[in-house]
C-alpha cells in the first residue's frame, strides 16, 4: 500500500466527545436525540475507530436524506446498518467513500474522518480514498471482461501491476505478480476453487452468487482498509447468501466491513455492532449487535426489530 495521504484534516482531530451536546431536536415519539446519542457515544468498542463521522447531513435537492449522524466505526469488525426502506442507510454508506458525489443533486455537510483525516476536506484525493474504502453494490456488477481482467482491473489502472504491450516490449510485464494477486484475491473471496481453470472466461458467465464474490475479489484487489457493502446478498438465493455471509465474517479479520442490510437475521448473525436508522434519515440507536437485538434502549427500535413498525 502506498503512503499517500488524503489531506490533513482542518477540524480539531478525533475528539469525539466535542460534539455530543449540540442538537436538541425532538423525535416523533418524544425521545430526544440527545439521549440516544449519549448512549452510543458512551459505548466503548473493542478496537480503535477507523471511521469517525461527525454531524453528517446529506440533502438531495430539498430532500433532507440524512440528519446529524455521528458515529465511530471500529477497526476490523462488521458494522451493520439496518432500517426501513428510504431511511438513509444507503445514503450514509455512499457518503463514506464519496460515491454521492456522482449524484448531481446531492449535497453533504459534516465530516467523515478516515484515519484522522476529513475525506470531505478541500482537495481530498478521491482516487486514493476509494482505493482505501472499497465498495460492493447491491446487484453484482462485474465488467464484461474475463474473470482475471475483472480482478486485475483496479491494480492495472492504478499502475500496481504493469501489463500490456508496452511493458512487454520494455521487459517489465508483471504476469507473475498479477497471477499471484488474482489467486490471492479470489481465494480471499472464496471463489478460487470454482473458477481456477477458467480465469480467461467472461465473468458474465458466472452465477449471481459467484459474480458477487468476484465483485468482492475485485474490491480486495486494490487492497482497501474498509469495505462498504450495500445489501450485497439481497439479489441472491439462500445458498449464495450464506456463502457471502461466511465470507464477510472471514473478511472482518483483516478488514473493516460496513454493511447495509434489510435482513435483520443477517445483521444479527454477522455483525459486531449495529446502527438502526428510522424514517427521516435519523440514526436512532447504535450499539453492540446483541444489545440492539435483545435489549434496545429505544422503544421504536424494539418495535422495528419485532416487526411492528417500518
Amino acid at each position, binding site marked *: 500500500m502506498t503512503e499517500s495521504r488524503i489531506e490533513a484534516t482542518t477540524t480539531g482531530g478525533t475528539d469525539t466527545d466535542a460534539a455530543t451536546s449540540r442538537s436538541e431536536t425532538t423525535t416523533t415519539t418524544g425521545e430526544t436525540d440527545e439521549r440516544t446519542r449519549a448512549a452510543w457515544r458512551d459505548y466503548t468498542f473493542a478496537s480503535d475507530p477507523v471511521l469517525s463521522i461527525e454531524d453528517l447531513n446529506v440533502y438531495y435537492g430539498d430532500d433532507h436524506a440524512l440528519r446529524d449522524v455521528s458515529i465511530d466505526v471500529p477497526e476490523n469488525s462488521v458494522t451493520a446498518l439496518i432500517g426501513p426502506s428510504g431511511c438513509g442507510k444507503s445514503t450514509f454508506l455512499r457518503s463514506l*467513500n464519496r*460515491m454521492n458525489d*456522482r449524484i*448531481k443533486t446531492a449535497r453533504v455537510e459534516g465530516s467523515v474522518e478516515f484515519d484522522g483525516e476529513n475525506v470531505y476536506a478541500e482537495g481530498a484525493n*478521491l*482516487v*486514493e*480514498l*476509494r*482505493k482505501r474504502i*472499497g*465498495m460492493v*453494490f447491491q*446487484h453484482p*456488477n*462485474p*465488467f*464484461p*471482461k474475463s474473470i482475471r481482467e475483472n480482478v486485475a*482491473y*483496479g491494480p492495472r*489502472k*492504478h499502475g500496481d501491476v504493469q501489463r500490456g504491450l508496452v511493458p512487454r516490449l520494455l521487459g517489465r510485464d508483471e504476469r507473475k505478480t498479477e497471477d499471484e494477486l488474482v489467486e490471492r484475491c479470489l481465494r480471499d473471496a472464496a471463489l478460487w476453487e470454482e473458477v481456477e481453470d477458467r480465469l480467461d*472466461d*467472461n465473468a*458474465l*458467465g458466472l452465477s449471481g452468487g459467484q459474480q458477487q464474490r468476484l*465483485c468482492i475479489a*475485485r*474490491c480486495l484487489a*486494490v487492497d482497501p482498509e474498509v469495505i462498504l457493502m450495500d445489501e450485497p446478498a439481497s439479489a441472491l438465493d439462500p445458498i449464495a447468501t450464506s456463502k457471502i455471509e461466511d465470507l464477510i465474517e472471514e473478511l472482518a479479520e483483516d478488514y473493516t466491513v460496513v454493511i447495509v442490510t434489510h435482513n435483520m437475521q443477517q445483521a444479527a448473525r454477522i455483525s459486531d455492532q449495529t446502527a438502526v436508522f428510522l424514517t427521516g434519515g435519523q440514526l436512532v440507536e447504535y450499539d453492540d449487535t446483541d444489545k440492539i437485538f435483545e435489549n434496545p434502549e429505544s422503544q421504536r427500535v424494539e418495535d422495528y426489530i419485532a416487526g411492528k413498525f417500518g
Partner: protein
Amino acid sequence: MSDAYGTRLVDDGGSTFDRVATAIVAGSFVAFALAAGTLFGWVPVAGATTYFGGGLLAIGLTTAALGLVSWRGLATTTPDRSPGLVVGLAQGILWAITAGAVASNTVGLGSLGWLLGLPVGALVGYLTIATREDLGTTLPAAAFVSFVGAVVMAGVISPTWAWEPAAFDASFPGTVVIPFLTMTGGLVAGWAGASAAEGFGTRGRQHGAFLLISLVVLLVLSVLAFLLVFVFERGVAVVLENLVLSAGTLALLVRFRRVRPTVADGSNAVLAFVRFAVALVLGAVGLGLVGVVLTGRQLAGDAVTVEPTATVGVVPALVAGGVLLVAARHVRASWEPATESGRRVARGLRLATWLLAALALVEVVTWREVAVAGVALLPTVGVAVAGVGLALVVASVLGSRSGVGTSWVPPVSRSGGVVLTAFVLCSLHVAITGYALGVGPLQLVGSGTVDWPFLMNPSQGLGIQLGVMPAVLGTVWIVLGAVVFAVPLAVGAAVFLTEYAEDSAFTRAVDVATNGLWSTPSIVFGLFGLAFLVPRFGGTPSIFAAQLVLGFMLLPLVLITSREAIKSVPDEYRDASAALGVSKWDTIRDVVVPAAMPGVTTGVILGVGRIAGETAPLLLVLNGPNFPNAAPGVLSSFTFDVGLQPPFVHVSNPALLDRASALPYQLYAIITAGVGAEESFGWGTTLVLLGVVLGFFAIGVATRRYFRTKLHQ
C-alpha cells in the same frame, strides 16, 4: 366460447377436419407462390390460367364446406358468437371492391357501378358480423375465392383481357390481374383455413394472424432475394467472362471456405441441412479438381476455365494461411512440458519460429531475397521447420491414438501452428521474390494462377475489354478514407456528449443538428464539397475531396448510433469502476467504449452501406473519366522528401489529389453513355458494386461479432 361441444385438451390435428383445413392453407400458399412466380416471369401465365382458376375454385368450395361442417356440428370446433368487427370490416371492403368492379366494368355501369358496390359491401360486412364465427370466417372468404376462380376458369378474365379504367389513363392486362387476384385469393383462403385448422375461437384467430404476419416477412425477404438474384442473373456472365483459374488455387479457396472459423453455433435442422449440402457441393468440387489435375484436361464452362495445374497463388495462400493461423491461436491449448526433453522441444520450436520471423522481417524490409551461396535462407529453413512440425503433428496424433505416453510431444494445435507459420512466411517469401516454391506439380507461385479480366483490368474503349479495376479501387479508397476520417471524430464527439456534457439545451441542439445533417440530401454535400473543399485541395475534383465529403455524410449516423450505444452501457459499470478509484477517462477507455463497440460498429456498417453506393456527390467532387484506363495508385504515389525547411519531412500523394472513378459513378456513366455502352457491362458493374458493398458489410458484421464475443463469451 359459446358452444356445448366438449373442447379437447390435447389437439393433435388428427381429425379429417383439421387435415382438410391444413390442406387449404398449403394449397393457398402454393397458389400464392406460383402467382408471385408469374409476376417475376418464372411461371408462365398464358397456359396456366385454367389451373389457377380451377385451383382457386377448389380451395374456395372446400373452405365453404369446412364452415358448413363446423356449423352443423359435425366437427369439434370452438367458434365464438361473431368473427368480430375487424373481420367484418375487411370482408365488407373486399366485397365492396369486388361488386363495384363487376358492376362498373362487366355490367358496364361505369362510375355508378362503384357506388353500387357500397351497399353490397355493407351487407356482407353486416352478415359477417351477425353470423357465428365459423360461418363468418369461411363463407364470405370462400365466396370471394370461388367467384374469382370461376371467373378466371371461365375465361372472363384471360391473359389477353385488359382492364382499362375510365377514370385514369392506365391499362391492367390479364397477365398482371390474374396473378394479383390469385395472390389475394390465396391470402384470404389461407387465413380462413388457418383459422379453421385450430377450430376457430381464440386459437384460430391467433393462427390466422400468425399466418398473415409471417407471410409479410416472407414477402420482405423475397423482395431482397429477388433483387439480388435479378442482378446476379444479368451480371454474372460478363463478370466471369474469360476467368481462368488454376485448379490448385481453386482447391485452396474451397478448402479455406470449408474451415471458415465463423461457423454459427446454433444447431437446428435447417442449418445442419445447409451445412451438409455445402459440404456435399464442396466435396464434389474437390473431387472434380483432383480429376482435372490427374487427367490434365482443361475444364471450361461458358465463361470460366479451370487450368489443370496444381499451382497455388500466393495471395489466396497468404489469406487462407493468415485466417487459419488466427483460428489456430484461438483454439491453442497451453502446453507446459513437464520433462527436460519436452522443454527442449518447446525451446527449439520457439527458436525456429523466431528465426523464421526474423528472416521474413529482413526480407520485407529489404524487399529482396536473402540468400547464402545461392541458397535462399527463408524457404530452406521454412521447409525444414514445416517438416519437423508435420512430423510432430503425426507423432502427436499417433501417440494419442495408441495411448503411448508422449510427454515431450507438443499438442497438435501447437505444432500445427508452427507448420502454418512456416507456410505463411514461405508464401510471403514467394510474394516478395516472385520465385515459385514447391515439389513437382504442387507449386506455390507468385502470380498467374487467377486471370479475371473483368475484375482485374481497366476497361478499354470500343468494347475490346470491359473492366472495373479502377472503379473498384476508387470505391475502396474513398470508403476507407471516409471511415478513417469520420469514425474517430464521431465516436469522440459521442463520448463527450454522453459522458462529459450535462444533459442541456446544448446537447439537445447538437442532437437536432446531427439528425438534420443525417437527412441532408447527398447532392448538397456534393455541392458543398465542390464549392468549399475542391478549391482548397488542388483545385480539381479528387479522391481526397470525395473521402472528406463522404466522411461528412458518415459522421452523423456514426455519432447517433455511438451515442445510443454509449448511453445503453449500464451505469453499474461506471459505478463499479469509480468505486475502485479509477478515473473517468480510464473508465471510458477501458469499460464504456469497449462495451459500446458492437453498437458503434453497427452504425459504421449502416453508414458505409450508404456511402459506398453514393453517386450524387461523386459526380461533383470525384468526376474522373467515364472509363478510366488506369487504377489510382494511392499506395505507390506517396513521396517523402526530407528538407531543411520545416516541417522537414514533406509528404505528398499526387494520386490522392487526382480525379478518379468509383463503382456507382462508373455505373452512372455507363447508363447515361447511351450509344456504345453495353447493357451487360452495366449489369456486371452493378454486380461488382453489390459485391463490394456486401464485402464491406461482411467485414463490419465480422468486426461486430468479434467485439460481441469479446464482451459475452
